[in-house]
């Protein structure tokens, strides 16, 4: 309220420019508001915007932390585009991870949300239990646990052994290692599930009742009513989860012990970036890699929003 009133005073009707005195008075009145904002402002400018701008500058330099950065123009970007096979490998792994993990995670989240939407008893408890992996999933501890599960002598192979199957070492076999990370990602379906559940609750019951009077089967109701009416939520989850997948780091770092191996099979883009920055201290090049990722994510998001008009239904 205060800020609205003050804004009105500082920018008077008719578009006249407010005098410096009036702006000072308005700022004075808003001082408590700014004070409360201060922790966030410090964090945003000091830890987000400042480093981001610095990294943009560094991406045009050679910088090894020990000597001052030297300006190299677009050399880092040219190298990324033309002379870095590891960049291409990291891109391939990351895209494969995004393409596999996001749809699987969303489908699984929707499936569980639909099961929960049937009004089962103890829903809050189940919801909390199923949400738990989302809270823990990106932690180091869970990644370590995952490594134990999928190791050659891990629990998964012990379980398979009961059926007479001798499983491979999932995490040290380049044919399977990425898929263990995909499974870990799908297991963290809690967050999109909660959002799907909220979206499902928003669909009026009488839509289904009208459809059932029309003779529509449950499957037809799902494809003709549930899915179309859920598209805004699907879109939101899709964008958020895809961006998250592009940025995935911890599981690959822990499971491959920072190498991205075996044979670069888990070399996520962010892991490669980390190796360049903190393994080889090529901060300028790592910054350029970071900005390339930003651009990739921005392009993906822009395409998502452009495509939304063709498949996302907004009621109003």
């Amino acid at each position, binding site marked *: 309220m205060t800020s609205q009133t003050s804004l009105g005073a500082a920018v008077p009707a008719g578009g006249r420019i407010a005098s410096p005195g009036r702006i000072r008075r308005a700022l004075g009145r808003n001082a408590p508001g700014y004070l409360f904002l201060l922790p966030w402002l410090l964090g945003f400018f000091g830890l987000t915007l400042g480093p981001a701008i610095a990294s943009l500058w560094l991406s045009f330099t050679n910088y090894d932390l020990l000597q001052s950065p030297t300006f190299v123009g677009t050399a880092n970007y040219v190298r990324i585009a033309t002379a870095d096979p590891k960049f291409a490998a990291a891109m391939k792994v990351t895209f494969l991870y995004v393409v596999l993990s996001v749809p699987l995670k969303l489908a699984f989240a929707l499936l569980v949300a639909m099961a929960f939407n049937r009004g089962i008893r103890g829903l809050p408890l189940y919801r909390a239990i199923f949400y738990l992996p989302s809270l823990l999933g990106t932690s180091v501890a869970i990644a370590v646990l995952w490594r134990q599960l999928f190791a050659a002598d891990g629990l998964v192979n012990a379980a398979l052994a009961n059926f007479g199957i001798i499983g491979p070492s999932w995490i040290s076999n380049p044919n399977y290692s990425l898929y263990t990370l995909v499974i870990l990602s799908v297991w963290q379906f809690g967050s999109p599930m909660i959002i799907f559940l909220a979206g499902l609750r928003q669909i*009026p019951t*009488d*839509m289904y*009742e*009208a*459809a*059932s*009077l*029309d*003779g*529509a089967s449950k499957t*037809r109701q799902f494809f*003709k*009513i549930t899915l*179309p*009416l859920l*598209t805004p939520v699907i879109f939101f989850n899709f964008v958020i989860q895809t961006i998250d997948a592009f940025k995935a780091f911890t599981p690959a770092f822990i499971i491959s012990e920072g190498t991205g191996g075996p044979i670069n099979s888990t070399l996520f883009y962010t892991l490669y970036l980390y190796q360049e920055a903190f393994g080889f201290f090529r901060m300028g090049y790592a910054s350029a890699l970071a900005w390339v990722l930003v651009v990739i994510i921005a392009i993906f998001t822009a395409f998502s929003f452009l495509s939304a008009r063709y498949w996302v*239904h907004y*009621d*109003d």
Partner: protein
Amino acid sequence: MATTIVLNKILKRYGSAEVIHGIDLKIEPGEFTVFVGPSGCGKSTLLRMIAGLEAISGGDLLIDGERMNDVAASKRGIAMVFQSYALYPHMSVYKNLAFGLETAGYKKAEIDRRVRDVAKILKIEDYLQRKPKALSGGQRQRVAIGRAIVREPKIFLFDEPLSNLDAELRVAMRVEIAKLHQELGNTMIYVTHDQVEAMTMADKIVVLKDGNVMQVGAPLDLYNRPATQFVAGFIGSPKMNFIAATVESADERGAVLSIAGRSVRLPGLKVAAAPGAAVTFGVRPEHLTVGAEGGERLGEVTVQLVEHLGGETVLYTVNHAGDTLNASVDGQLKVSHGERVTLMVDPLVCHVFDANGRAIATPAIPAAQRVA
């Protein structure tokens, strides 16, 4: 084409709570039946049980003699118009109308013919490609009705379909639904809490309260001969006046009641109560007149508020005992706030209810016949 619906001892329980208590009802072919009652009386639940959207806990639902309790909603030959319209927001009007037919597997040409026919009947041809959000409330309501008509069902169910519309549109849509019933001739059940809708549209009104049927009858039967004080108070607008009274005498020729300490003669009104019995006297505002002539003298009252509506004037009055009495009188009557006037009443249109709210007065000549 038209269909009979019979409800035999229909029950609805949610867990141990019984909300519909063994309702018996017969709806004749082509009849426009209105379920009316206050919020929570069970009218919508009963409708949804007929539709197949709520399970029937006990009793039998028969449609054209066939037991329907366990038959799926889509197999009952029923279409329903919902209070919220329940239009699919992501589909065009055309798609909304066609959805049921597509589901039923009709050919495209047949679907197109039916959709366009219905759109013509409901005057929504120009909106077929629009989404529901681009329509006004009235247009949405037409689409909702169209979606019901297009399937050519045996029975139409309406669940408070006009409650989201403004007053003017309600009246217009009321007329259109009544016309539609005349044109189609189908059996229709209409749920509302608005007694004006019930009175103006129904062939038969079913008044419900707390999961029980209070009375079933034609609108004028319910208006003229309410069986209970509840029905008397619910049917009719403005609402019937009720005043505590004591029977002084009652016989075949008429009765004398003590109302607010004053003896009021009601010749021609047979009251089935013994002298000294505590009763409730009821009279509709439109049956009261102001002046010294035109019936029996009910007593002097003080005018607290006057509403001049042009065609009628509504007086909000109070007698010396503090009982409120509203009178709907001649629109040109000059009465002002604070004035004392005498209210007169025709005894044959008065009502008397016993301590349990049951009607115990019968006019020697029913009012409806006298008017005719």
